């Protein structure tokens, strides 16, 4: 093949199949009016105008980035849904546990109260009046203390929870007022 023909062939090949250029990462593409925001070590165009500027500099790159972001958003949504499902399951389990605890508390209190009633009746029958009254009153007193204490702690818990929601309401109101 002559040098002339070879040169022609080279020219023809380069016109039909331009040599592949290495594609620079999006973060390395620079140009006028293109600003970016960095998220998780990934540079992304900042605004719609920046996406257009990027598309002018590297056609198709902006669409690819948007597609990737959409896929990431879908993945994040799936992750958040999984977290919500997990939380609801854990809360149901926690509530069932709390209700079981309360039920066992009632069972224990009734058992002790009935045993104490029987004991106090027996002590009264054999003439041990003081011991009988002492046994009955101590059990009733212990249950009364539990009643008062749990009423107090329940009230404190409800007030604390309501305060969290009230604080969020105040925050929303501040945002609404532009503060």
């Amino acid at each position, binding site marked *: 093949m002559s040098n002339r023909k070879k040169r022609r062939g080279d020219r023809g090949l380069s016109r039909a199949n331009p040599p592949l250029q290495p594609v620079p990462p999006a973060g390395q593409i620079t140009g006028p009016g293109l600003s970016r925001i960095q998220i998780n070590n990934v540079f992304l165009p900042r605004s719609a105008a920046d996406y257009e500027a990027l598309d002018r500099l590297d056609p198709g790159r902006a669409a690819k980035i948007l597609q990737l972001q959409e896929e990431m958003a879908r993945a994040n949504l799936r992750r958040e849904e999984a977290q919500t499902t997990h939380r609801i399951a854990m809360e149901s389990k926690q509530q069932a546990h709390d209700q079981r605890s309360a039920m066992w508390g009632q069972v224990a209190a009734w058992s002790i109260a009935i045993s104490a009633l029987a004991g106090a009746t027996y002590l009264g029958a054999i003439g041990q009046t003081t011991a009988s009254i002492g046994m009955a009153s101590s059990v009733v007193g212990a249950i009364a203390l539990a009643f008062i204490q749990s009423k107090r702690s329940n009230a404190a818990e409800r007030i604390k929870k309501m305060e969290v929601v009230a604080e969020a*309401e105040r925050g929303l109101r501040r945002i609404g007022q532009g503060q």
Partner: protein
Amino acid sequence: MSEYTSFLFARSSFLEGVGRVLDLGATMTLYNTSPSAEIADARALLADRLALAADSDAAWSEDHVEPQEAQG
């Protein structure tokens, strides 16, 4: 349990069960109330939204990095 999903009531406990033996008038069954139905609805919606926001935070907490400014 999240305070957002159970903000209307207190959690049950063993001690509460013991105390309920004397609670013949059901005085321990108390809920947080609101001045009106609209406020109650708004609070319930807000609490639901906060619970979802907490879920979102938990889902993101492993690898989320705050956005940083960068100029190309």
